[in-house]
C-alpha cells in the first residue's frame, strides 16, 4: 500500500465551504411516509396499551412469555398460542443517561432511556422505554420500576400511552 501509492483520492470539504458558496450543492427532501400495518400481535399490544395493560405472548413449546409480543416464537419456530397480561412492573436491565438530541444538540434536561425487563416475561425479556420521576444518578441496573400510563383520555393506542417507567418503593422522587 504505502510503498506503491503516494497519494490517495478524496477531496475534503469544510462546512463553511457550503455556507460561503465555495462549493455547489443541491437539496432534496424525500417524502418518505408510511402507514405500517400493525398486524395481529402489535395491533393487540397497542389496543391493550390504550386499556392500560402490557401484554405478551406465550410459546407453547418453550413456554417463554415473549414481549414485545409476536405471533411466532423465534427459537422454536412455532406459533405462539396465548396472551398473557403482565403486571406492568419490572427491573432496569440496562440504561443510559442521554444529554444530546439525535442531531447532537445539547438537551436542557437529560433523558434516561432504559431496557426494562418486565415481570412475568421470560427471563431477560423486556422493552425499551424512558425512566421518569428519578434523578439520573439514582438509576442503576437492577432498579425496580413500574409503568406510568397516561390518563385514559390522552391515550392513543401507542407505546407512548406509557408515559415512562418510575422507581417503585423507597427511592426519592
Amino acid at each position, binding site marked *: *500500500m*504505502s*510503498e*506503491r*501509492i503516494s497519494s*490517495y*483520492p*478524496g*477531496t*475534503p*470539504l*469544510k*462546512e463553511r465551504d457550503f455556507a460561503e458558496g465555495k*462549493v455547489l450543492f443541491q437539496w*432534496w427532501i*424525500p417524502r418518505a411516509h*408510511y402507514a*405500517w400495518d*400493525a398486524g395481529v400481535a*402489535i395491533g393487540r*399490544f*397497542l389496543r391493550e396499551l390504550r386499556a392500560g395493560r402490557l401484554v405478551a405472548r406465550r410459546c407453547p413449546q418453550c413456554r417463554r412469555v*415473549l*414481549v*414485545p409480543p*409476536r405471533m411466532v416464537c*423465534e427459537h422454536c419456530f412455532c406459533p405462539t398460542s396465548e396472551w398473557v397480561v403482565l403486571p406492568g412492573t419490572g427491573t432496569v*436491565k*440496562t*440504561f*443510559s*443517561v*442521554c*444529554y*444530546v*438530541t*439525535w*442531531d*447532537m444538540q445539547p438537551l436542557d434536561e437529560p433523558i434516561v*432511556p*432504559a*431496557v426494562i425487563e418486565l415481570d412475568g416475561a*421470560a427471563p*431477560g*425479556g*423486556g*422493552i*425499551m*422505554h*424512558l425512566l421518569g420521576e428519578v434523578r*439520573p444518578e439514582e438509576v442503576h*441496573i437492577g432498579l425496580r420500576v413500574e409503568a406510568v400510563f397516561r390518563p385514559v383520555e390522552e391515550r392513543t393506542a*401507542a*407505546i*407512548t400511552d406509557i408515559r415512562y417507567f418510575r422507581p417503585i418503593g423507597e427511592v426519592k422522587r
Partner: protein
Amino acid sequence: MRMRRVAVVGAGMTKFVRRALETADELSWQASKMALDSCGLTLADVDAVAFGTAPDTFDGVHMNGEYCAPGCGAYGKPFIRCYVGGGTGVMAVIHGWYHVASGLFDTCLVVCEEKMSSCQPHPQGAFLTIFDHTLERPLGPNLLWIFAMEMNAYMTRYGLNKRDIALVTVKNRANAKDHPCALLGEEITVEDVLNSEVMAWPVQRLDVSPISDGAVAIVLAAEHVAHRVTDKPVWIEGVGWSLETAYWTNRDLSYPLQVEQAARMAYQMAGITEPRKQIHIVEPYDPFDYKELHHLEGLLLADKGKAPEMTALGVTRRDGDLPVCPSGGLLGVGNPIAAAGLMKVAEIFWQLRGEAGRRQVPGNPKRGLAQAWGDLMQVGTVVILGVA
C-alpha cells in the same frame, strides 16, 4: 468435494473525510480504480462486482447500489449489492467470495462506499429510523442510546470502568497517525477521552468514531488467476456470518453471541482450532471503543470481560503479541460504515503482504482476521485471511 480457493490480489481506498466533494459513484470509482491498478488488472478483467453500502438514507439515494454501480465498474457486468447494516463491509467480502467460490466467476471486484455527509442536518438522522417503527421510534431514540445501553451492560457485568475502555481510543487514534487515509490520527491521552463531552452516559464524544465519507475496494480472484496476477496472493481461509434476533431488548447485551457464531463458522472453515495462537493480527469492528473489547471476546480471542486487561497490558498494541486494529480502526481512520468494514479487510491484506508501511506489524504475520458488526447490535461478519 474441494472448495474453490479464493484470494485477495489487490486493494484500494480513498481518504476517509468528514465531507467529500466527490459523489458516491465517484468515490466508488476512485477506490475501484486504485484496487485494479494495484494488481495490474483492467476493468475488462473483472467478471462480476459485489457491492456494499449501508442505509440509503445516508447517501440520499433509494436503490443506492444502482446509482454507484458505474463507479464500481458494473457497466455490462453482473452486479449485486449486499447489506447487513454495520456488518456490510466484511459481508461484502463474503459476498464476493461466494461469487468466485461458486465457480461462476474467476474474478470479482468488491466495493464498499458510504457518503454519510449527504444526510442532513446530521447523519445521525439516518439512524433514527433503524428502530422499530411502532414500538421504539415514537420514544424519540437516537443511535447513541443502544450503544450506551450495551456499553453499560458490558461494564456492569464485568465491573469495568471507563478508564479501562478509553485506552482503545488512545491506541487506535495513535495507530491511525501512520495511515495515509486517516481522519483522526493523533496522540491523545486517556484523560482526553474521560474529559470529553458526555453524550449518552457512558458514551463520551471520544468513545465514538467519526462520521465519514469514503470508499474501499478489493479484487478477488480464483486460484489459477491469483497466481498469474501476483506472487503474493492472500487467501480467504474462512468466512462466517450470523444474525441475532431483532428483539434486542430480550437479549443479554453484555456479550456479542452473534460474533461468536460467525467466528466459529469461520474458524471451522479455516481449520482453526486455537484461534489465540493461530490468528496473528485482528481488525475487530470498533465504531465505539468498548466494541473492540466486546468483539475480541466474541471472537474468542480474549476471555469474557478480560479484553480491557489485555489492552492495558499492551498485548493489543501494534508491537504486542496480538496486534489489534493496527490500521487505526474506525476510531482513528474514520467510519464510513460499509467502507470502514472493508478497510479492515484491506488492512489485513496489506499487513500479510508486508506492505503496510509505517503501520506494518513486526514478525511476518501469516494469518489475520477482520470482523464487522451492526444492525441492532445484532449481526457478526468475519473473514480470515492467510498467506500460509
